């Protein structure tokens, strides 16, 4: 019985596995100083940026790949990756009508609205989108509307050209290139990403979002996102990602930096749905990402919410440095692994300021033969008086061939700190499933109900449109995982 349902449901295909047939401009495979100079040159970068890249590359060469995560995978061959791949566009775009129809179809299939005029009707949701395909941002919407408020929202490449003073000031201030192996690699070869600056006293009137899409074969995606919220500002930022189904693994190594000034608040939400590989564990994205925010000044707040369902291997710890007094860091996460997926994800909350508070809610769900680990650090430094943390890490197991692991690290250097940690591990109960069935609800719907209930605290933190998507995604990712 169990096996029948399993076999029937597991054949569900990854919905975003298509490839857009669009010509692209690729650099040859491989990595060396020449490639980095070429990337910088293609992007017409100022000298300081090239210098930064080369310093990062030099440092990267001295580093070793980290092995402490509870994941195993073949080491990527860094000389067998295309570091720069750009969909060809004939000229500078003035309106959506000029966009390659293949790209338009891609937006449509991915369900992204790139049309600004819809908002005039007043009913459509207002989300500004930066669309990054392979190595470049292809289109950013609502730029002008946002500019009226002084908000800068553009591709990273454009920011380097138009706002070099801001980029210079903040880039690498939260995640230095020396931080870790993949951050160093990213700093050397990053090609694009999003940049966002919210000026003093401005509450961003719409959700900002970046949609990352890997399209070309053999490429790696190395993007950088930098969000700066100046004093008394607020922004909610969304990130989505998908990739075609391919037999080989593709590398995605991103860096996201967030800076929150006095009284500023940044909400960052991710629905990560990179191609997870097939059910035998073949193919899929290696998602090695460094995300970190700093509450630079007093009363600031950074909140990470993530729903991780994709990727073959995920290695990701969105963190907050709580430097300003009374600052707040939050991490809400749902990580789902099925088949042969592996995830080692969690957060770091570094309390430096007084009266800083952090909350960690992590919900891991493992099914199939997958491995799902929570790894989190709470550090309360000396002088961070009255710092508080609350952590809750729950794991849900589906079936008996998967694994769930919890690695909490707690370092308290200040006696006034209070850290609470709760952890539970449960199996999706036969009793719960039978209870649902005895009320007329079939197996798949029952799993959807139970899992969504289990993740509710996190899903509630997502913006509305995203929450609905995430719920559906959870159901699809777990279809057929329990009989």
């Amino acid at each position: 019985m169990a096996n029948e349902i399993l076999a029937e449901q597991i054949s569900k295909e990854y919905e975003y596995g298509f490839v857009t047939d669009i010509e692209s401009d690729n650099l040859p495979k491989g990595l060396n100083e020449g490639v980095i100079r070429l990337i910088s040159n293609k992007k017409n970068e100022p000298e300081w940026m090239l210098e930064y890249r080369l310093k990062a590359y030099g440092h990267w060469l001295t580093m070793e790949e980290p092995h402490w995560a509870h994941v195993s995978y073949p080491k990527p061959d860094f000389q067998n990756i295309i570091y720069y791949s750009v969909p060809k566009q004939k000229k500078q775009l003035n309106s959506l009508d000029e966009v390659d129809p293949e790209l338009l179809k891609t937006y449509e299939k991915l369900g992204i609205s790139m049309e600004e005029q819809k908002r005039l009707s007043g009913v459509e949701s207002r989300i500004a989108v930066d669309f990054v395909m392979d190595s470049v941002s292809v289109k950013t919407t609502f730029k002008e509307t946002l500019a009226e408020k002084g908000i800068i929202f553009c591709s990273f490449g454009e920011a380097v050209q138009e706002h070099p003073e801001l980029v210079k000031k903040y880039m690498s201030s939260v995640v230095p290139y020396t931080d870790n192996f993949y951050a160093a690699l990213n700093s050397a070869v990053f090609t694009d990403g999003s940049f966002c600056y919210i000026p003093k006293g401005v509450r961003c009137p719409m959700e900002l979002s970046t949609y990352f899409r890997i399209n070309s074969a053999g490429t790696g995606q190395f993007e950088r996102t930098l969000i700066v919220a100046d004093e008394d500002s607020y922004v909610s930022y969304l990130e989505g990602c998908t990739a075609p189904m391919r037999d080989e693994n593709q590398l995605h190594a991103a860096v996201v930096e967030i800076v929150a000034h006095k009284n500023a608040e940044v909400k960052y939400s991710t629905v990560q749905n990179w191609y997870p590989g097939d059910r035998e564990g073949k193919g899929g994205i290696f998602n090695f990402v460094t995300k970190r925010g700093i509450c630079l000044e007093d009363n600031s707040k950074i909140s990470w919410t993530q729903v991780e369902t994709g990727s073959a291997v995920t290695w990701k710890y969105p963190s907050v440095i709580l430097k300003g007094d009374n600052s707040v860091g939050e991490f809400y996460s749902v990580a789902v692994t099925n088949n042969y997926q592996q995830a080692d994800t969690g957060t770091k909350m570094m309390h430096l300021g007084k009266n800083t508070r952090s909350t960690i809610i992590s919900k891991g769900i493992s099914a199939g033969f997958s491995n799902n680990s929570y790894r989190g650090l709470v550090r309360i430094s000396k002088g961070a008086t009255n710092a508080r943390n609350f952590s809750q890490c729950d794991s849900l197991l589906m079936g008996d061939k998967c694994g769930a692991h919890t690695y909490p690290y707690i370092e308290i250097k200040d006696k006034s700190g209070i850290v609470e940690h709760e952890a539970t591990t449960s199996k999706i109960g036969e009793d719960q499933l039978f209870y649902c069935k005895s009320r007329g609800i079939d197996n798949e719907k029952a799993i959807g109900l139970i899992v969504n209930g289990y993740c509710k605290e996190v899903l509630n933190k997502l913006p509305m449109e995203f929450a609905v998507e995430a719920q559906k995604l959870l159901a699809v990712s777990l279809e057929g995982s329990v009989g």
Partner: protein
Amino acid sequence: MLSIKNLHASIGGKEILKGINLEVKAGEVHAIMGPNGSGKSTLSAVLAGREEYEVTEGEVIFNGKNLLEMSPEDRAREGVFLAFQYPVEIPGVSNVNFLKTAINEIRAYKGLEPMEAKDFLIRLKEKQKLVELDGKLTNRSVNEGFSGGEKKRNEIFQMAILEPKLAILDETDSGLDIDALRIVANGVNKLKSKENATIVITHYQRLLDYIIPDVVHILYNGKIVKSGPKELALELEEKGYDFIKEEVGA
């Protein structure tokens, strides 16, 4: 409505039900009583379709259909309802959402459109009153943090909402104080009609003071050893289960 013939069932190779025969007609209330380990809960589990139990012999016909061939969810959709002895908690899933999903699944099975939100709310309010369930409980997660009595009342509330043809109450009286017992029994009585039937499984006679059965069956060692009018329950209460043991010569 329900016809059980020579039903044998086992779990882990151990035979629990050893040839049950039972006929239940629409409009009737049957009580099944018996000592611990006699097979009462096994019978309700087998009727609801729990997969751990293996039916080795016999048949169960429900409204002309072979019940044993149906999946648990299809049995529910056909109108069988089991009120659990130990209702299960489903954290994060509100009672309302749970019941709405259940109703619409049952309707879809019958080829009906999902219920209108307004109609659903009306039904919710109406049945809430019937079982005197606190309105707050309907918005809370299914059974999570409910007291024993609230859980049992919630079972009857679900039954009221889903309007089954055959309701099986598995030791619904266990763990209830006298007030809760009265409320639960009142609910069951109000839901009684000519079209539906109820099987009340209980260890004690006291529930039958409130829910008057048409027939009382005594289950012993996997078989129904005696059936009779409601007075049989009183006799059993008075003499204890030992008299049955003597009577069947065990």
